[in-house]
Structure formats: C-alpha cells, structure tokens
C-alpha cells in the first residue's frame, strides 16, 4: 500500500501543505479547514506535519456509533458524510489527534489521501511529505524514537 511518509527534519514550517490540503478538500484556500496540520517544536526552530496515518487499528472506526467511517479503495479511512451525525466520538478515539471536527458542516473531517493523489505531498517544497509504497502505514513509532537525536541544538 502507499502511505504518506513524513520526514519531520525536512519540514520548514512553510504551511504550503495546509494551503494545498484545504484547496483539495474544499476548493478554496483556507488552512483552517486543512486536515494536515503543522506543529512547532523547540520554540520557533522546528516544525512537523501531522495527519492521519491511516493506522491499522483505526480507533475512529471502532468508536463511530453509526458506522460512518469506511475504507476507501486507496486504503484511506474516510467519513461518509451522509451517515456522520457529528457526535465527535471519533475525534476523542483517535490517539494521534488527527480526526477533526468542522463546525461549519457539523461533521467529522479527516485525511482521505485525496483519493490517491495527496495534494500535500505534491505541494511540499522539501519532500517532508512523500506518498510512497510501504509495508505498514504506522510510521509514527520510528519518528518518535529518532526525534530526540534530530533536535536543533538547544540554547545554552
């Protein structure tokens, strides 16, 4: 399967992925609607993107009381808007905090891998986000382990 592989050390925090994501998802440039988000680390010196890993456990699917979450042909967990009742249970269930709630639609919203051509990966100027073949979608574990070594030196 293909997954979004994220290499945080490459991320400069330019937020272009958020602009691209919001455009792909909604047709307008509105980062507030992006389902990939950039977080800062180490004051203003480091950034990393986070979005749904399409994890195998899929706690969101388990939690959803109305079975509004399903798996798309490209392996993304997607929300069926017609079924979603906006209860937000999935946002609580997701251990990575990558299930969002859109107050304008009153529905949950998340990464759907843009149907197999992720806009964030195309837009990222530094290849911090790539869409690549992988055995498992679960890249967060190794990221956390490597993270400590890659921090920019701390202020003395």
């Amino acid at each position, binding site marked *: 399967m293909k997954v979004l592989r994220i290499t945080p050390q490459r991320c400069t925090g330019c937020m272009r992925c958020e602009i691209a994501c919001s455009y792909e998802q909604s047709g307008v440039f509105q980062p507030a609607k992006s389902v990939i988000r950039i977080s800062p680390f180490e004051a203003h*010196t480091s950034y990393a993107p986070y979005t749904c890993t399409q994890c195998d456990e899929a706690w969101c699917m388990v939690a959803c009381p109305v079975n509004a979450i399903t798996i798309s042909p490209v392996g993304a967990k997607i929300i069926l808007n017609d079924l979603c009742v906006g209860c937000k249970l999935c946002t609580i269930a997701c251990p990575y905090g990558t299930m969002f709630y859109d107050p304008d639609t009153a529905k949950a919203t998340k990464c759907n891998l843009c149907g197999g051509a992720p806009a964030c990966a195309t837009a990222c100027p530094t290849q911090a986000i790539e869409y690549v073949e992988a055995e498992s979608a679960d890249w967060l574990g190794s990221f956390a382990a490597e993270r400590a070594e890659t921090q*920019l030196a701390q202020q003395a």
Partner: protein
Amino acid sequence: MQEELPGGYAGKILRVDLSQNRTWTEAWTAEMCRTCIGGVGLGIKILWDEVPAEVSWDHEDNRLVLATGPLAGLPAWGTGGLTVVTRGALTNGATNTQANGFFGANLKYSGYDAIVLQGRAPEWVYLYIHDDTVELRDASALLGKDTWETQETLEQMLDLTGHQLSVYTSGLAGENQVRFAAIHGDYGHVASKNGCGAVMGNKRLKAVAIVRGSKALRAADPRGLWMAAQEIAEDLQYDPSTRSLYEYGTLPGVSGLSRLGALPIKNYTTNVVPEGVDMSQWTAQGLREGFDHRGHQCNSCGMHHCHAQVLPSGPHQGAIVDEPEYEGWSGAGWAFGCTDPVATSWLNTQVDRACVDVNEFGWLMGWVVECQEKGYVTKEQLGGLTITWGDAEAANALLQMIIRREGFGDVLAEGVKRASETVGGPAAECAIYAMTGNTPRGHDHRARWEEMLDTCTGSGGTLDSGPPVLPTEMGQPARINPFDPDAVARMVGGTRGRRQFEDSLGTCIFTTRTLLSILCRTLSAATGWDFTKDEALLFGRRTAALMRAFNIRCGITPDLERPSKRYGSVPVDGPAQGQDIGAHWEHLLDVWYDMVGYDRQTGKPLPATLEDLGLSHILADLWDAREATHAGT
C-alpha cells in the same frame, strides 16, 4: 448589493484610529483593486490622499499602512508578504519597505488585505486581530521587551504557537523612536527602512498580533494559479540567474561582491579584504554549513533562504540566531570591520531583536569606529567605551545605548547623517548616507553606480528600482559596463516600475525574480484579470511617480539628490580603485531624469508623464497652470 471583487482579495481594509480606540473596515471597489493592486500601490494612494505636507512623520495624523496584496495567502512561493508604507522618520517622506514571514497570510485568512493605522494611543497598546475580533489591548506587559521577547510573550499570553500567530513589533528602538527603528516579525523578518518603527512607536503601538484566521481565499482560476506557481518555482530552481538565490538566498553576496570591490569594508576606507581573513568561511557554502541550521521559510515558500542557526563557538556558543542576510553580514560585520562570521551572526540577531535597520547600523558603527580612531569622538563621549574595528561586543553595547537613547546613544539614535552633523568638523565628512536621508543598502556603491544613483533618487527610504531583474524584458540590455554613466542611468531609469509592481503583490522580492510575464499570469489567475507586462510596468511607474509627487509635496527636492562626501568618494584601492562617480554625477542625473520623464529642475513628474501614467488628477496639485505649459520644453 456589494459588487463582486476580483479573486485573491480578502475584500476589506482594516482601519484603526489609535487616538479614538476605534476600528472599522472599508470595502475595496473592483476598480481600486485594479489600479492600486495592494502593497505599495495601495499604501501610496492612502498617503497621497490622507497625509498632507504639514503632517510630518511624528504627527499623529500620519498614516502607517501595513499592506499585503492579492497573492498573499495563496500557494505561490513566498506569500506572507508585508509592505510598510508611511511618512518615515529618516527622510520625512514616503517609505516603501518589505518584510516576509506570515503576516500577509494570517491577515488575509482573518479577512483583511491591509491595516491602516492613524492617531496616537493615550497608553501603549497592541493590536489583536482574529477574524472579526479586532481589539486594541493594553501592552504594558510588553514594554521594554525586544522583538523576540515580545513575540514569545504574546504567544504565551494568547496561548498560540508557531505560525498560528504572526507578531510584528518595533521593539525597544520603536518605543524610544530611534530614527532608524524597523518593524520586525516572526523571528527574523524585518521591514527596515526609513524609520518605519519610529512611526509605530510614535503611535504608541507596541505590536500587531494576528491569529491565522479561519476565512477562505478564492482564486478566479485556481488550476491556472497552481500551474503558474509551479512555473515560478521551477524557474527559480533551474534558471542559472536565480539558482544560487534558490540554494543559498543572499549568502553568496559577500564573496561575490568582494571580488568586484563592492563589499563595504571599514566604512569605505578600503576595498581590500584584510590579510589573514579566511574567505573560505565567507562563501555561501561556508556560511551555511559553518552553522548547525534548519529551514525557517515564510508562508508557502520553497526557497532555501531563511534559516535558524546555532552559534558553534565564541562567547555566545549555542545561541539560536537567525541566519543573516547578505545585508546582515555586511551591516553587522564588514561595514565596521568585523570579519568573523560567528560574531557577525550573533550581532545581526541582536540588531533584529533591538529592531533597527542593519544597513544604517553598519554605517553608524563604521563611522563611530573611524571617528574614535581619528580622535573625532572621544572615549568620554562614548561613556567610557572604546570601540575598534570589528569589535562586535562593543558594537552591541552601543546598540543597547542607542535603543535606550542613553548618553551618546541619543545622538547616534538619530542615524548617521544627523549624528555626524551634530558632531561636525571632520567627523561630518566620513559618514555614509544619501542627502535625502535614504539609507544605502549594504554594498560599496562606489563600485555599484546603479545603486548609488537609485539610492540618491529613490522616493521610498532606500532605492526604488533595485538590481535589475531580467532587464531585457523591459527593453534594456542584459548587461552593461558598470562604470559607463550613460548606460548606468539608462538602466536605472529604464527598469523603473518593476519593483513597485512586485511590492504590491503580497509576495517576496526573491520569489518574484522570474519573468514579468509569469508574474502577470499568476496575478491574472488569482484575480481573473488579463494583466499584461505593459500594464504591470505602467502600474509600477504610476506608483513610483505618485511616491515622487508625495515627496515633492513633503519638500524633498532634487538638490538633495546626491551622496554624502564619503558615500560619493573615490575608492583608494581594490578592483574599483580610482572610479569617480562624482565626476559624472550631474550627467547621471540628466540621463536618468530624461528616461523617467521628470523635470530636472523641480524634480516633479512632467505634466506629460502624469498624463501618460493616468495621474492627470494630481497635475494641478504639482504644477500651476503657467508652469505646466512650459515644463519640459
């Protein structure tokens, strides 16, 4: 019903009256979008309409315009742009100065294309903007803080991190109305020219804090916009003229300019790199790889330009600083004889944190060191301080005195022109400045005549045209003999207008170093216009002429259009040794005036020029009827 606006625009201009604690919005009209675009185009219209001759830079009715443009917040590279337009403290005339970061994007996602500030707050305030919430809030907790501390404090107060909050402030220099105070934001982005930070301080506005808003921006042709953005990105990456800028930003400047005699060394007293300086540290690669670094780019930007870096050695080892621009390596380094990259990098961030223009700072430090060496300024005057060539710690001590206006710092806080005039005697003859008060950028312009001419005739606080980008597109030769006065003046005059167009888009000066035709295509895709290169240049020249008209009204006349004695002197050594721009000065002006269509005697744009540029409506303000018929004949 409100008329439909072109794509790209947020649609509203935010007005703030600090005296009255009142905020309101104004809608654009579609016609205004097309004629003003944004940035400096919008800013100068507001100055012309609302700041009459008697409203000096420190009058509360002065306007401080913080403008973005139609491309800000969109996915072209480098769309966090901020253009500051005001009547500035160094020239008491127009200002056009840019910074990047995230200001432009955050502001537009909150629903505004520009902020226009007027009045003076009774107590220090900061402006808070989040979507429809716009408030002037008590800034007492921020007073005395430098630029980075101000941003950190606001992040804590508002519980926001990263680019969710963009903060622009004028630091302690602004609080004390240092005449060359800048406006700094987002850890390393500075709108530095013409004392715009002093204006902000004069208004008792400590900071502008903009939350990344939740509103949508639309493009008329989004697919066309993505394609144009991609085309710009590829051009910047692969074209030989921009490739090193893409890879290294402005870092190649030091070694490159040193070979042309255009690196300013020790207050223009030499153009030869001192013996023992290891220039391999000063190559682009040396400066980038000499520090642990990480990309810190602006909104939507893919250039390998802005970086955070860590000092590898020295008394401040381990400190996180902002990788200096060429201007920082020069102003916080070479200009006063500092040839140690680590010390320079540290000092450059101190300058940013203090919030003054690094160019003016460099000329000031170079002048002080030379004056102390020659006995024109004594140790006692400097409060017991001795500063020798290259002493970054002493330079920082002076910087701290300047931004607090302590002792001799109060004299230096007026900028190098006024400080040297105050001290007088031979000290007055070794200061680098343009007579208008414009601050030269960080080169030795005695080996870069285009920029000296541009700086001395510029209407915005520094140069107007800048180094030519793809001049053949504007009918100019690709390359000229840099010491041929005719060619130099024709190039500066003939490329006038492009910069003002760029400065109105809401983008960065580096990410617009592509063909004008591609920029027009990008603008058209965003807005739905059919913008052409000719319209872009007409717009730019109109904007430049309006800036010039504003300055004429402010009393800035052509007799001021010359370099100071040292600035216009003859290099005594190095590659440009003996080149004497002064011998050609009047001729340079003659040719330039002819090219741009302004009147050589009065400096005013000629009536015919005003008409060609669509500025007939200001003709009567500049010319009386009798004069107008004779002008230019």
